[in-house]
């Protein structure tokens, strides 16, 4: 196989429940600050959610925000912030060589529920059904809104990958750069899921929606008393470039995407499968040409469900036994940002290359013995003796999709 170009991350744009920029987000991860709050949604009532506070009008007119979707608005925010962070001015670029690749868990539920709610007020007279329904619900909506907002005539679409999707956007962006299809990729994932009651209701019906008296402690992966997921909204897009291009323009380099893997459990609609997850981790390590001990941080997918966390811990234990690897979890702060999760949680760890710290998993009052992994970083940040050079992010989703991405400190 021919040598593929190296691909690096040169910009990060994000909207997280505990921060709308990487420095703010990182600070809150190191200080143990949760972004989960009490939340109420029609038909479900009082629950919890991770809610973002960014100002959509920084990059959209009020009409654009009104016409588009929340996922579109988050994508536009993240794309603009990532470009700004990267120092890239699209005006000086061939925009047809820019690709937009956005992972989504689902898209269209919010708008469809809203329209059904609307026509229900009019005895289901469909003359009250909005003409905006189709452009808001098509699966490429978030990426398409970015192209409209930034005037990008290049390839732009979404990748549906359940909760593994955030990594897919990044992986696909890397592939398109390596194939020479684009010269700049905006890749990552977004989610608007807190605006659909169906997501909450379905998790609740499954017995997998978090309950706790304190919102900030509701998401608590690896804790013995964890009882389910906190649904969250968010997004994260990276500017990805081929290394040569990034060096030629003197770009700041956050890290190199060293390897990745995506596979399927092929075993159940909803239940995770440790063997599939192990195969995914080993696949990513093989793709990167690395041994387990060469990974410094494993950022887990764990969503705070009883079974999911245990199964993932089993997979990590089987691959990383005896390694120096530290293990953490970002959902304990922000809940489950669904389609954004992989990209957003990875972003929260990338500053480790500079500050030398591993952010902890918070809210673990009583560690579940089944989740007592070697290297698990609990409640307080840790500064490992060994320099942090590589981070592996894992994200898994329904129908058994698994994804893993390895990002490495940039070395010339």
């Amino acid at each position, binding site marked *: 196989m021919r040598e593929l170009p190296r691909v690096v991350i040169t910009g990060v744009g994000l909207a997280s429940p505990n921060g709308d920029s990487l420095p703010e987000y990182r600070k809150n991860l190191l200080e143990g600050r949760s972004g989960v709050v009490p939340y109420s949604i029609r038909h479900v009532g009082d629950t919890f959610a991770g809610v973002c506070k960014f100002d959509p009008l920084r990059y959209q007119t009020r*009409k654009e925000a009104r016409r588009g979707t929340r996922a579109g608005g988050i994508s536009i925010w993240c794309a603009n912030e990532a470009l700004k962070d990267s120092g890239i001015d699209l005006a000086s670029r061939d925009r047809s060589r820019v690709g937009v690749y956005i992972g989504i868990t689902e898209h269209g539920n919010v708008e469809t529920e809203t329209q059904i709610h609307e026509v229900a007020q009019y005895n289901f007279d469909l003359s*009250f059904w*909005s*003409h*905006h329904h189709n452009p808001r619900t098509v699966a490429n909506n978030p990426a398409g809104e970015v192209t409209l907002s930034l005037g990008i005539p290049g390839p732009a679409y979404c990748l549906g990958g359940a909760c593994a999707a955030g990594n897919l956007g990044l992986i696909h962006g890397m592939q398109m750069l390596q194939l020479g299809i684009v010269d700049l990729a905006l890749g990552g994932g977004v989610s608007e899921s807190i605006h659909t009651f169906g997501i909450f209701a379905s998790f609740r019906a499954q017995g997998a929606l978090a309950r706790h008296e304190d919102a900030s402690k509701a998401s608590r992966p690896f804790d013995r008393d964890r009882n389910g997921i906190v649904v969250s909204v968010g997004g994260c897009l990276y500017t990805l470039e081929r290394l040569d291009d990034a060096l030629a323009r003197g770009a700041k380099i956050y890290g190199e995407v060293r390897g990745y893997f995506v596979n399927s459990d092929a075993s159940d609609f909803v239940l995770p499968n440790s063997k599939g997850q192990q195969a995914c981790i080993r696949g990513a390590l093989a793709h990167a040409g690395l041994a387990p001990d060469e990974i410094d941080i494993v950022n887990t997918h764990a969503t705070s469900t009883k079974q999911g966390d245990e199964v993932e811990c089993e997979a990590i234990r089987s691959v990383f036994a005896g390694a120096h690897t530290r293990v953490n979890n970002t959902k304990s702060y922000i809940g489950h940002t669904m389609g954004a999760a992989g990209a957003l949680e990875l972003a929260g760890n990338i500053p480790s290359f500079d500050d030398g710290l591993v952010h902890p998993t918070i809210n673990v009052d009583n560690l579940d013995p089944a989740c007592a992994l070697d290297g698990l970083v609990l409640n307080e940040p840790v500064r490992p003796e060994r320099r942090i050079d590589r981070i592996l992010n894992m994200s898994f989703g329904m129908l058994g999709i698994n994804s893993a991405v390895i990002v490495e400190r940039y070395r010339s």
Partner: protein
Amino acid sequence: MTRDEIVIAIKDIIATIAPDEEVSNLAMDVRLRDQIELDSMDFLDIVMELRKRYGVQVPEEDYMQLSTLQGCVDYLGPKLESKSLVLTALKG
């Protein structure tokens, strides 16, 4: 609703669907599209708001009647005569 109120009703609808536009100075006899940014989806929004707020159905063949504020007043006058003004964007 009086004819003056119908003008306010239309301006309120436009202010709702095109919130970045200034509606107070809209001329009566100039096409709305020539005064502010309105596309066909916005126009369908105007028709939808008339339906929701006032129960007025505007058939497609009559859409051209709504191209100016004066046209709106003339066409909607009889239909809105017995309706009360609903304000969303311009209230207060």
